[in-house]
């Protein structure tokens, strides 16, 4: 039964809450929070050294492998862009693949058909994407939730169909990107080029998301009504998110065309846009680290699966495993979602909590 301590001693209003508040404020050992700069520096170092060490570690020519790793960098950009729009500004818009595709076509068109320098092409591609972001974002403001998701999904397939129509009308079956500056034809320099962009954009995004603009986005995500009542111009900030996200996806698309040396209408497809969404869901909505982890997961897994021998011999039974990749990939995706419903980035927090708890457990012998 309830103990009865002397009252004056024990009943202090708010006392417990405050004590508890202090407890939670204690050493926040969240893996990615405390030594943030340390992790970043280490990450950058690894990125710089990777190409140099790859040959030694894996014993194969790193060119082809690096080329694939560069792809992860492009995916990180796309995931980051989707995360800003969906994870922060809370717009469930699935239209990013449209910018991804359009930008690749603009670059390829300018560079291969019009003969403009590559850099002009990149700039134009990003600019056009940003403008498209504005055009798409404006009506999107009136539409919300699943309606927006379906409408933007429709946009992606429509744009894909139009790009394909362009290809057909122009009588081509693929659209090669020529006129690349030499250093982008080299796997190593392409790698450094892409990751330099990734690091810079991550850095800038980090600051943006922790600024007045980022707070406004999160406020809109958490509570649109309250955000508006506290002076946040919903239209402006949602549009900004659309434009930034589109521009960034556009950059990713142009880089992707550079990486693949070709553009294809499949870049603006439901599959592609859903892959972007899968990245941030797997990684963690509203988390920069999540964008990175998600891009790695979605970018690398099919690659690893592609390394499995096919047909695989199990005893004398011949398993046509290559036709099962999609299923295996889906299954792994499902498992991640079941065990990390709020994304892989929660791995860091969980590890932090676990550290904290075991730490506390040691200390509380009193």
């Amino acid at each position: 039964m309830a103990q009865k301590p002397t009252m004056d001693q024990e009943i202090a209003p708010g006392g417990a809450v405050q004590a508890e508040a202090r407890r939670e404020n204690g050493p926040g050992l969240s893996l990615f929070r405390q030594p943030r700069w340390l992790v970043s520096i280490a990450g950058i170092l690894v990125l710089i050294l990777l190409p140099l060490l790859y040959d030694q570690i894996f014993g194969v020519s790193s060119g082809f492998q690096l080329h694939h790793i560069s792809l992860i960098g492009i995916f990180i950009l796309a995931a980051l862009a989707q995360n800003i729009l969906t994870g922060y500004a809370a717009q469930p818009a699935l239209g990013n693949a449209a910018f991804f595709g359009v930008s690749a076509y603009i670059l390829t068109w300018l560079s291969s058909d019009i003969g403009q320098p590559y850099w002009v092409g990149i700039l134009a591609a990003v600019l056009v994407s940003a403008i498209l972001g504005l055009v798409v974002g404006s009506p999107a403001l009136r539409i919300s939730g699943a309606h927006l998701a379906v409408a933007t999904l429709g946009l992606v397939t429509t744009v894909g169909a139009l790009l394909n129509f362009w290809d057909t009308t122009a009588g081509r079956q693929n659209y090669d990107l020529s006129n690349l500056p030499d250093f982008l034809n080299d796997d190593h320099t392409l790698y450094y080029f892409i990751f330099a962009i990734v690091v810079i954009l991550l850095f800038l995004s980090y600051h943006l998301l922790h600024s007045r603009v980022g707070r406004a986005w999160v406020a809109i995500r958490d509570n649109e009504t309250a955000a508006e009542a506290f002076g946040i111009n919903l239209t402006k900030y949602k549009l900004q998110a659309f434009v930034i996200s589109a521009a960034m996806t556009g950059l990713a698309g142009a880089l992707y065309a550079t990486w693949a040396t070709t553009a294809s209408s499949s870049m603006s497809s439901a599959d592609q846009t859903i892959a972007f969404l899968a990245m941030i869901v797997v990684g963690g909505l509203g988390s920069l680290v999540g964008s990175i982890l998600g891009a790695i997961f979605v970018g690398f897994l099919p690659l690893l699966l592609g390394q499995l021998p096919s047909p695989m011999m199990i005893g004398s039974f011949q398993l046509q495993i290559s036709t099962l990749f999609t299923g295996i990939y889906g299954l792994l995706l499902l498992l991640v979602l079941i065990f990390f419903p709020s994304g892989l980035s929660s791995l860091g927090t969980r590890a932090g909590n676990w550290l904290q708890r075991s730490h506390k457990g040691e200390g509380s012998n009193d």
Partner: protein
Amino acid sequence: MIAFLQVVIAGLVTGSLYGLLTLGIVLIYRTTGVLNFAYGAISALCACFMYILLTGPRLNFWLALCITLLFAPLLGIVLERGFARPVLHAPVFTKAIATLALALVLETITQAIWPQLAEVQHFSTPFEGHAIHLGGLYISAIDLVILVVTTTLMLALNLFLMHTRLGIAMRAMADSIPATRLMGASVGRIFMLIWALSAFLAAVCGILLAGQSNLINVQFMDPILLPAFIGAVLGGLDSLPGSLIGGILVGLVSNLLAYFLAGHTLGSLDISNPAIRDTLIFVGFVIVLLIRPQGLRGRALLRRV
């Protein structure tokens, strides 16, 4: 004139199929807030199952139909247990992506166990070759079946959702799972029922679609998924009659466009190209949404402070 009417009727039927497909999607959306992207895969799996019954053991059509319509809810229950339950409390986006992952798994399984269905096969029904002639107009028996089944299912389902204890509980779940549990409703069982029901609807849709074109393969549902979604959103997503109306609208408009644009060019631009047609439909869809963001029959989201 006859040709035009024929196109209109076909549009109605195709649209009803879109609407039928969306019934199950709207059911899950209304009750759990999730767009089920695995719906097409479930539908295809069930129809393929029936095809195998028809061609493997050579069962009678009606017997195969009954077995399939029993199999579908069971499949729904298995999927709910194995897959939907574990992510029940996950954020909406996680659930949506999980349904996509499920679609990948189901498609792979279907294709792996019935490799012959990778290619198009003939799906025969007793209705094949039967039609009503009205003047020069042909209305095939299966089309009539589709119209009747779709309307009936829509009405029955709407009645069920709006007026029965279980139906109300299903809608309540979408608002708050904890509160639903506080009312003594077994969320797990209701959730299972929703999946069973929606898998049943998926099977009906798959069978009718296969029956209409007498064709089937593992991916045969894929192309109708997006227009069906668009129809559902056009109708309002949270309204069953709305999703049927939306579906019919999409079917009708795309058929009429195809008919009227055929053979026309605009300068050097071939506007009869399917890409142009799809673009026009999409633009129209967006315009409707801009005028009525909640869809034709949807209710505006109410959020009081």
